[in-house]
């Protein structure tokens, strides 16, 4: 067995017991990245010297008894929209070319304090706007199960790297499904925390009322441990919730007895792929066999969530992305002669087409004459979606659903049809609009051997319930243990 086959928690235990050194672990994964990443392109930046210096510091902290986290010493990859001091942060965009943050994001700080070792930055859709990790300036990431296919997105680099065992843990961000959907496409496990559970300080903003950073790993156990390390109040993010149960890794192993799980019947009609439907319904049966009561219901508001999400997300993005002006950092157009040309030329040359599309859309829905019909209407729809979830969580502890209507599609297949791409977010975006936590994990494979994922959605700060249920599921199933290229179903 290779080091990269160990779970993150098992690797940390081996490091604690002095069977493995932190530098040895970091070196093993750096070698693995060197070998397998050329075919996948999950990483944008890998700096071996920087990673080995971080490993030495982590080993010293462990030896001194300062880093006592259950994950101390484990290598981790970070999505390229999260600041790591000294490593380029590009958001996969030309407009951030050459930018090296002078500060750590709060989550990066917490990784370091917990003794984890950042080994590199992971590819994504430009500014996290997309579901396929194809739109970035560094080129696409490929799905490790079939390199002709996309890994999903926007945290496609994070999910692909974890699935390919290039890294045991990664951070992603989820604005409308960007952790969960790539996990489903790559056969990884990922958790989108409750809005406000994890600080957004140092996360380059896409849509501030929806963005959350969360863990990606090969199991719920590893995700829970990473979430425990990064979550909690932060004075630098005023939207961080202060009074929540953050000891997610302490969740008791109580199984599913007495749990009621809602199954939205209308999520399984219409455009969903037959193999996806079959695998997700089998997961529901499995939860039932584990003691949960599964009840079907009709999810209200289903057809309104994607329009509401894109109006709100694009509106917030059009405001957030106005900070990129070619003055303070990143790319500046060489041909601009005046200040207004500097803004125009820098932004026009620096942003890719999908980012431009969303900024134009955001400015449209916010502009005079259209604001009431689109933006205001979307905020009201958001209120109705939140109310609908509030009513559902009076009846159900968790809601089980698909993550995406299909498995991973071919590179380039949906790039020319943005609307089709947006429709693929139907199962994930309502969760962000309501600020809820959700965990996605593999539940089988389709006829072509591609992973299928399902998600469990909980009420605000129900992460312990998600972890309890996900852990119980993974104890009796093996889908999350499968590895691309090594074994078939």
């Amino acid at each position: 067995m290779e080091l990269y086959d160990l779970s993150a928690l098992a690797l940390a235990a081996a490091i604690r017991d002095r069977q493995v050194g932190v530098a040895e672990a970091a070196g093993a994964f750096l070698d693995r990245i060197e070998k397998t990443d050329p075919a996948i392109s999950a990483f944008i930046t890998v700096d071996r010297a920087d990673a080995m210096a971080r490993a030495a510091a982590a080993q010293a902290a462990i030896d001194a008894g300062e880093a006592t986290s259950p994950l101390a010493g484990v290598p981790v990859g970070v999505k390229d929209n999260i600041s790591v001091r000294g490593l380029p942060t590009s958001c996969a965009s030309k407009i951030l070319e050459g930018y090296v943050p002078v500060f750590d994001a709060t989550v990066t700080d917490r990784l370091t304090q917990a003794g984890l070792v950042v080994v590199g930055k992971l590819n994504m859709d430009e500014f996290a706007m997309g579901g396929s990790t194809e739109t970035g300036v560094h080129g696409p990431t490929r799905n490790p199960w079939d390199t002709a296919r996309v890994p999903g997105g926007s945290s496609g680099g994070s999910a692909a790297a974890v699935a390919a065992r290039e890294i045991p843990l990664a951070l992603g961000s989820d604005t409308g499904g960007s952790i969960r959907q790539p996990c489903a496409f790559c056969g990884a496990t990922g958790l989108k925390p409750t809005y406000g559970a994890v600080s957004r300080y140092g996360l380059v903003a896409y849509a501030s009322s929806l963005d959350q950073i969360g863990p990606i790993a090969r199991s719920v156990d590893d995700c829970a441990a990473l979430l425990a390390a990064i979550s909690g109040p932060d004075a630098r993010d005023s939207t961080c919730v202060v009074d929540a149960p953050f000891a997610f890794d302490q969740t008791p192993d109580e199984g599913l007895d007495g749990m009621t799980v809602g199954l939205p019947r209308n999520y399984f009609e219409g455009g969903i792929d037959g193999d996806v439907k079959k695998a997700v319904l089998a997961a529901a049966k499995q939860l039932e066999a584990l003691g949960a009561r599964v009840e079907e219901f009709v999810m209200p508001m289903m057809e309104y969530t994607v329009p509401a999400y894109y109006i709100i997300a694009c509106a917030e993005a059009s405001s957030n992305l106005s900070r990129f002006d070619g003055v303070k950092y990143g790319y500046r157009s060489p041909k601009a002669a005046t200040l207004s040309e500097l803004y125009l030329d820098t932004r026009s040359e620096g942003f890719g087409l999908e980012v431009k599309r969303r900024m134009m859309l955001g400015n449209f829905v916010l502009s005079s004459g259209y604001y009431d019909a689109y933006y205001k209407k979307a905020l009201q729809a958001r209120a109705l979606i939140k109310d609908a979830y509030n009513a559902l969580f009076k009846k159900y502890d968790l809601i089980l659903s698909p993550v995406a209507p299909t498995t991973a599609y071919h590179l380039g297949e949906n790039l020319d049809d943005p609307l089709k791409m947006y429709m693929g977010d139907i199962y994930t975006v309502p969760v962000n609009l309501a600020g809820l936590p959700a965990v996605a994990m593999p539940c089988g494979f389709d006829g072509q051997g591609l992973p299928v994922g399902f998600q469990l959605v909980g009420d605000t700060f129900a992460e312990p319930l998600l972890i309890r249920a996900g852990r119980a599921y993974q104890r009796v199933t093996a889908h999350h243990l499968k590895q691309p290229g090594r074994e078939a179903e």
Partner: protein
Amino acid sequence: MQIDGALIAYLEDLSRLSLSDAEKTRLAGDLTAIVGYMAKLDELDTAGVPERSHPFDHTNAFRADVVGDSFDRALILRNAPDAGDEAFRVPKTVE
């Protein structure tokens, strides 16, 4: 609704973008399709429904007003495309 050339020009201005002709044609088509789909929300009866701009009803949280370290100016300026005299340098803005 149809997103026409005049509206595209207005949105370019609001977005501080200058699109190529190919991008203009492409985005006019894309935005017309996307906005048409968004009009689905018209069906929804939202009379009396409050606007929710945030997942929770939090009021703003303020941190303690304590003096802390600032970032090092030289370090920050190292990221600037052009800098000089301890400042960001941009083309002349006033005659």
